[in-house]
């Protein structure tokens, strides 16, 4: 962009204007300030995670201190790892299942539309509008009957259902971007639908599929309602671990911060990686 903008100016022989007028610099500094203020609770949280408990609860707040990893060690000592394991199973397994079910479905809806394509798309997205409180009672009763309460695979099934509509819409929007000529060329050579999907489209789709998977992982990792209501000691996930901090006796803010940092870090990193696709996932493919 900048190269394009400067080239004509140079050729026209215009007097060299200052590239950054003072107003623009002020606005940039202002933007930085606004961004930092907005994100300051996170920065403070990260700082607090490296404090001792008595440094975390002071008035006025402590800004300079000797950083320590004590509180992280304390969280790990408080049986954090089983929760982390459950979260990873629930997140990765449900995302895999979403892709296995979603890729063929999105392909069918994008490349070989059936008569009622719009109805099907409408149905998928309408399930996202169904409040979870409207289905949790029967799901709880059914899980109890099947002895599936406190079982991480119950969460896998539910998280798959939670993310599948988003994935189908998002993947469909990526499928629609695959040039039709490539698909037709393959079909002329005698490749069937399955072969076109597997050998021709999937390699082109790889970045889109990765983005979809990342979005699904974010939602699955952060899910709380089903996790807190359907699990107990065995299958509880990371968000459920954090309920231990709702009310605590004594000083616990530094340990809380360390727990929050560890619980959020994997998904924050994933979100940063997928930030260009985030808006597409959140709007279910409607906005690119």
């Amino acid at each position: 962009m900048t190269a394009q903008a400067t080239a004509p100016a140079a050729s026209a022989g215009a007097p060299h204007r200052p590239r950054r007028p003072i107003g623009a610099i002020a606005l940039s500094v202002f933007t930085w300030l606004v961004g930092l203020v907005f994100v300051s609770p996170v920065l403070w949280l990260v700082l607090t995670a490296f404090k001792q408990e008595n440094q975390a609860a002071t008035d006025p707040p402590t800004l300079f201190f000797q950083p320590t990893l004590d509180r992280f060690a304390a969280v790990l000592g408080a049986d954090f790892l089983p929760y982390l394991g459950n979260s990873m199973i629930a997140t990765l397994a449900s995302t895999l299942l979403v892709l296995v079910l979603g890729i063929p479905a999105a392909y069918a809806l994008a490349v070989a539309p059936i008569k009622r394509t719009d109805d099907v798309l409408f149905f998928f997205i309408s399930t996202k509008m169904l409040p979870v409180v409207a289905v949790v009672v029967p799901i709880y009763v059914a899980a109890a009957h099947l002895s599936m309460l406190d079982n991480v695979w119950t969460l896998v099934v539910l998280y798959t259902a939670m993310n599948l509509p988003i994935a189908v819409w998002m993947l469909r929007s990526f499928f629609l971007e695959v040039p039709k000529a490539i698909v037709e060329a393959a079909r002329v050579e005698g490749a069937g639908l399955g072969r076109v999907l597997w050998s021709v489209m999937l390699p082109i789709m790889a970045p889109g599929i990765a983005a979809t998977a990342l979005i699904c992982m974010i939602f699955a990792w952060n899910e709380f309602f089903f996790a807190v209501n359907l699990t107990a000691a065995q299958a509880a996930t990371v968000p459920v671990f954090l309920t231990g901090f709702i009310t605590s006796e004594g000083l616990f803010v530094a340990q809380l911060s360390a727990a929050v940092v560890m619980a959020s870090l994997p998904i924050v990193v994933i979100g940063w990686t997928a930030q260009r696709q985030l808006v597409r996932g959140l709007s279910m493919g409607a906005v690119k």
Partner: protein
Amino acid sequence: MSTATAPAEKTSEKPTAPAARTGRGPRAAGWVRRAPLLPALVFMLVVTQLPFLATIFYSLRSWNLVRPDSQAWVGVANYLAVFTDRQFLAAVANTVLITAACVVVAMLLGIGLALLLDRSFWGRGVVRTLVITPFLILPVATALLWKHIMFEPVFGLIGFVLSPLGVDTYDWVSQSPIVSVVIALVWQWTPFMMLLVLAGLQSQDTDALEAGQVDGASKWQSFVWITLPHLRRYIELGVLLGSIYVVNTFDTIYMMTQGGPGTASSNLPFYIYQRTFLGFDIGQSAAMGVVVVVGTIIVAMLALRLIFRTFLNAQEATS
């Protein structure tokens, strides 16, 4: 692209089964086309629609888990009880209040941030990455962060920042529970709105803006008359999608206020949760669930139409 060509070579080597099957006539071809769709469709029907039908069934029965032998058909009695339940009506009001406040404020802040981030400046990528972070943190953790670190009456950061104004030891969470919840939610949802509006700004046709400048429009005029109308669809989409997500807020209430003090900050998901998992009243909880769905459908229909319109337009633009 090199990865794309390698597997494609394999395609020509062996003709595949589905290709052979398509020869069997239009009916078979139709099923071949539908087959990839069916597993996902059946899965979604079983996991979402069956439970909802069961919810309707339960809502017509009296059933308390504490008294397992108490089941009976009661018709619409549960619904009558729901609509005369003051706490339910208060939860409805809280839900509307929290959702509307959160979505409107988050959208205004989101527009502001998006306008700032739409310019190119040094470190723009870093600032954008920082700004989306609140949306990525576990919502449960966000609630804890605001409750114990920001709003804490004695050591909290908000109290420290506001101490020059004399609001030093205000107990936000118990004195103004709804305001506290809304602030935490706004902080969490502003990045979502910002991303949508930013996508809108960046899809804007610069020709129109340049034409406006040539015609002597001021920056403010081109914003109001060219940029805002272009953003309208993105703003609508953000408001509607945001509403759908925020209406279902459970984690923030659960972690910050537990619906309290008393039932002051209880919203619908939290109240139904209480009636189901603490009150064990399956019949009434189910009836409330059905009422919530009917309410949601009305809002959702608008949202769905809009998403369809936006999506189909985007499609036309790309193809």
